[in-house]
Each structure stands twice: as C-alpha cells, then as structure tokens.
C-alpha cells in the first residue's frame, strides 16, 4: 500500500485538539493528533475505550457537541476544504455527501417512525436533488447494493422489522447512497454477533472497491483491524502513539502500548494459560500523568519518560512511534 502514499491525501488532519471543558477541569480528549487518509485506503484506529478515537472521528465532521466540546486548534482538510472553519450550511452539504458515517449501534441509529426507504430517500433528495420517485428507485438500488434480499419490500418496512445485521446494512446503504469520498465507520461491527460481523466486514471491503471510497475504521478489536486496514494508527490517552502499515504493526510493533495490546490477545498457542494484560488502567484524561501518559503502565519506563513527553518520530520509513525507547531500546544509544 506504500505506493498510494505518493498521492495527495484525501483527508489531512493536522495538530487536531478537541477538548472538553467542565467547570473545574479540562479533558484533552484529542490532543495534537495528525494523520492522513489517502484515496482508496483504509486507515484503522485502535485503542482502549476513552482513548479519543471516537472523538477524533466525530471531529472530522465537526459532530462533537459544542459546548461542552471545543476545537482548540488544528486543521482538518477533506478533499482540499478546511472543515473546522467552514460555515454550517456548507458543512451540511459535505456531511452525508462527501463524508459519511456508520455508527456503532444499528438498533438505535434508525428513526423508528420512518420507513427504511424514506430515510435513504431523504439523503438523496437533500444532496443529489432527486425527486421523490427517483430517490425511491435509488433507495431500492442502494439496499440491493448492500445485499439486502427483497429490497422492494424492505424499503416499505419500518426499522423494527429488521434484525441488527440488516439494520447495519441499511446504515451502510444510507452512508454510501451519495458515494462518499470518505466513510467513517465508528466500531460498525461491535454490536453484531461474530458471523454477521464477518459478513458486514466483507461487504464493506467489496463496496469500498466498487465505489472507490476511503475508509476510516475505528475499532478496539485487533482481529477486525487485521482484516480491514491498510495502515493502522494506535491511540492512547488522546495521542497517536504509533502509526504504520498493518503488517508492520503486527510483526514489529515498537511502542510498548502496541506490544501490550497485541500480546494481550487470546491466542491458540497460549490457550489454557492466563491472558497477558497491560497493568493498570487508562489514565483520567483530565489529570494526565507527568511526562509520557503511558509511563505509569510501561515496563520499559525510565526517568526520561517520567520527565518529558516524547514526540512522534519516524523511526523507519512510514513507521511513526511516540516513545523514547521504541522496542524497549534507548533511542540515544
């Protein structure tokens, strides 16, 4: 996938900072995050709950509620246009059109009082200027595209008549209705059972090729990442800690946190023994430890780690790590 990196990126996020202010504390949910997504690639974001991966994604469409959230700085450039400073009306044109979302909860992401068809038609009428009849036909096609059997019938169904997997397909159909350039999928398979999960992931991969869209894929499931992503970004406590292509991440992880994540997966060879865990808990984002946020849980932690925050460094081509001792070695030596 390295050849795509020579292209101009579709999405550039530069030094994004999304903070949440409450009366007596500031939560730095996304703290100086930069990354790119290229045309046609899938970038996976992994991390524990509360590491800022969802907020990063919401920020791209400026979907974080303000207040309490605030964009403290940075730039988000999607297809040449800056999102954070864009007027609301223009942003509404982009949402659902160039930039589409799939959310985690298919059971509650469809409005219960409208027919499936109407919810897809609305997007098409809004962004594609179709009339009712054209939109209706396009909605049937959209359902057909996500392999829903009997689309002519399902368009007239209400959401309650569909199962979770079917609803997630409808959500995908809605998101892809306007052939977006970037699809942001925020844990789209977490709420589904494993067989349905595999079907939905296959479907997303097929559709990605079909309409040549880029995907920003969030998950905390490393096996899903391995199946979906071209490149992987690991986040911890609101910061990017490692960024590399998917094979590198799994074969040569350099950040102790990434290593911890990979080692703590259940594995055939270790069955019967206790799982490896990363000691400790995710730090409170409003009260981060001094120095590197991971230092209190890190096996390779040294005095330097406790004193200062390491920068994200390109240790080998296209492999970025935020650590003073990547792979447990000392950078200085």
């Amino acid at each position, binding site marked *: 996938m390295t050849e795509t990196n020579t292209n101009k990126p579709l999405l550039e996020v530069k030094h994004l900072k999304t903070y949440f202010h409450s009366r007596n504390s500031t939560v730095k949910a996304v703290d100086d995050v930069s990354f790119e997504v290229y045309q046609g690639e899938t970038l996976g974001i992994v991390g524990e709950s509360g590491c800022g991966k969802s907020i990063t994604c919401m920020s791209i469409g400026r979907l974080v509620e303000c*207040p309490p959230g605030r964009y403290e700085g940075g730039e988000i450039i999607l297809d040449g246009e800056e999102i954070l400073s864009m007027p609301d009306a223009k942003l509404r044109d982009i*949402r659902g059109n160039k930039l*589409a979302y799939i959310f985690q909860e298919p059971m509650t992401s469809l409005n219960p009082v409208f027919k499936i068809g109407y919810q897809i038609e609305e997007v098409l009428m809004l*962004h594609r200027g179709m009339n009712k009849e054209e939109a209706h036909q396009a909605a049937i096609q959209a359902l057909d595209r996500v392999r829903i059997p009997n689309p002519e019938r399902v368009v007239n169904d209400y959401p309650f*008549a569909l199962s979770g997997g079917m609803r997630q397909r409808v959500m995908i159909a809605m998101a892809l209705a306007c052939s977006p350039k970037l699809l942001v999928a925020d844990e789209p398979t977490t709420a589904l059972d494993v067989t349905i999960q595999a079907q939905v992931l296959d479907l997303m991969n097929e559709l990605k090729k079909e309409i040549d869209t880029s995907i920003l894929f969030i998950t905390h499931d490393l096996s899903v990442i391995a199946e979906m992503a071209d490149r992987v970004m690991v986040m911890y406590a609101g910061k990017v800690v490692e960024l590399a292509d998917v094979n590198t991440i799994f074969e040569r992880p350099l950040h102790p946190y990434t290593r911890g994540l990979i080692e703590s997966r259940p594995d055939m060879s270790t069955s019967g023994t206790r799982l490896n865990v990363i000691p400790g808990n995710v730090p409170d984002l409003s009260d981060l430890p001094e120095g590197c946020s991971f230092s209190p849980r890190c096996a390779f932690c040294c005095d330097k780690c406790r004193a200062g925050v390491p920068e994200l460094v390109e240790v080998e081509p296209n492999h970025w790590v935020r650590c003073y001792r990547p792979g447990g070695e000392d950078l200085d030596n």
Partner: protein
Amino acid sequence: MTETRDEIIRKSTKEDSYWRGVWRRLRANRMAMISLVILILIVLSCIVVPMLSRYETYEVIPGAANQKPSAQNWLGTDKIGRDLFVRLFYGGRISLGVAVAVTALECVIGVVLGSVAGYFGGIVDTIVMRISEIFMCFPFLMICITLQTIFGKSIRTLILILAVLSWPGIARIVRGQILSLREMDYMEACRALGISNRRQIFTHLFPNVLAYVIVYATMSMASVILTETSLSFLGLGVSPPTPTWGNLIQEARNLTILQNKWWYWIPPGTMIFLSILCFNILGDGLRDAIDPKMQK
C-alpha cells in the same frame, strides 16, 4: 388464489405499523371506543341538527315563551320564546369549535416552543422555560377580564386568551421528550447526514412526540370546554345571544328556573358532562394504546 410468501409477510408487517398498532389497542378498549362513538354522535348532531331544524337559532316564536318540552319544541323554549333544542346543538358548535381552536393553537405554540427549547437547550431552553413559568403564574380570571377589556369581548379574543394562557403545559411535555430524543443515535446519524436543524426538529423529532401531543390535545379539549363553560357562566365568555353550553346554563341561574324549569339546564349540563367525560376516557385510552408500557 394463493398468496405468495412475500405478500403474506408484507401484509403482516403492514398490519403492525405504528399507527395500526395504536388503533388495534384502542379498539380493544371498550370504554374508549364507547366514548369515541358518543363524541362522534355529539359532533354530528351539532352539525346536522341546526341545519335540519325548522326553527332558527335566534328565531323568536311568537307567543311561545317559557314552553315546556312538546312535540313542536322538543326541549321547550326559553323566556323570550326561542327553541331550546336547536340552541342546544348550535351552542355545541360554538363550544366545541372554541375547544378545537384553542387546543390547536395551544398545541402549535406549545410544540414549537417546547421543541426549540428541548432541541437547542442551554440559554434558549432557560428563556422559554422561564417564560412558561411566568405564564403559569398568572391568575387566570384576572388576566381574562383584563385582556377582554383591552381587546374587546369576542369569540376570537376568547380563543386567543385561552390558548396563550394554556400553552406551557404541552410545551413542557414536548420539551421533556425532545430532551431525551435528541440524544438518540438516530439524531446523531441525522446530523452526520447533513440534515438541517429545522428539518431535524420538525421532520425527525416531531413524529416521535406526536403521540404525546395527541393525548394531550384530547385531554385539553375537555378542559377547554369546562373553562369556556365557567367563563360563560360568569359572563366572561362568549356574549349572549350567541348560545354556548355555558351560556345556556347561565340563563338558568336562578332558583325558580332551577326548581321548576329543568329543560333550561339539564340538557346543556348533560352535554357538558358527557363530552368532558368522553374526552377524558378517550384520552386515557389513547395514552394506553400509544404507550402500552404505561398500563398498570
């Protein structure tokens, strides 16, 4: 003809659409259905009786004042000789008309302000809710008298006054619902699809609170009929000679009539009683039908 499997499925899902479910549960509620039928009969007779009657509403029959009910005047005549049967149903038109108008206006004001407050929250919410509290504090009769003095006494003024004084109830219900609905995932999805605020509120949120508004409106019909009656009885409602149920009772406001001329007050009293009872039972039935979880 054998139905294909698809057709059967289509039929069964159609049967189970939201409003069909509501109607099915309402139909199973015998009291509510009886109330609905009585209400329909009352409304129909209010429309039809004045059209078919051989007397006009304001027509004075010469030499026929204070007549007992008879074959000519089914409910007798009043003290200047007007037929009370036609006046009863014409009065029903006014009473029910006022109730419908007030309820409609009150729901429009309440739903718009309530949804805006609930959707935007924060300062907008605070302002709207404080205003609604101010309106709820007004001493009702005083404001009524004052406003009627300022704007003149007419049915239109009465409708406006009643609507303006009663919107906080529905506004608060709608606000509460919207506050919780706006946090639903599908509203998040709405925002992510680039749907405008106005469209989110009125196209996507409103149908979700419609059920509550319908229940409230039914109950409100009852309370407006009662309020209009009390106001007319006090001489603050619709001015005579226009008949309303309240005005008809007001004409019976002395002991001799109450004791000796039952046809002055029993019929309008019965109509008021029946319609209010039926609206309340229907409202309860609707609430149970719309949200079966609320049943005991």
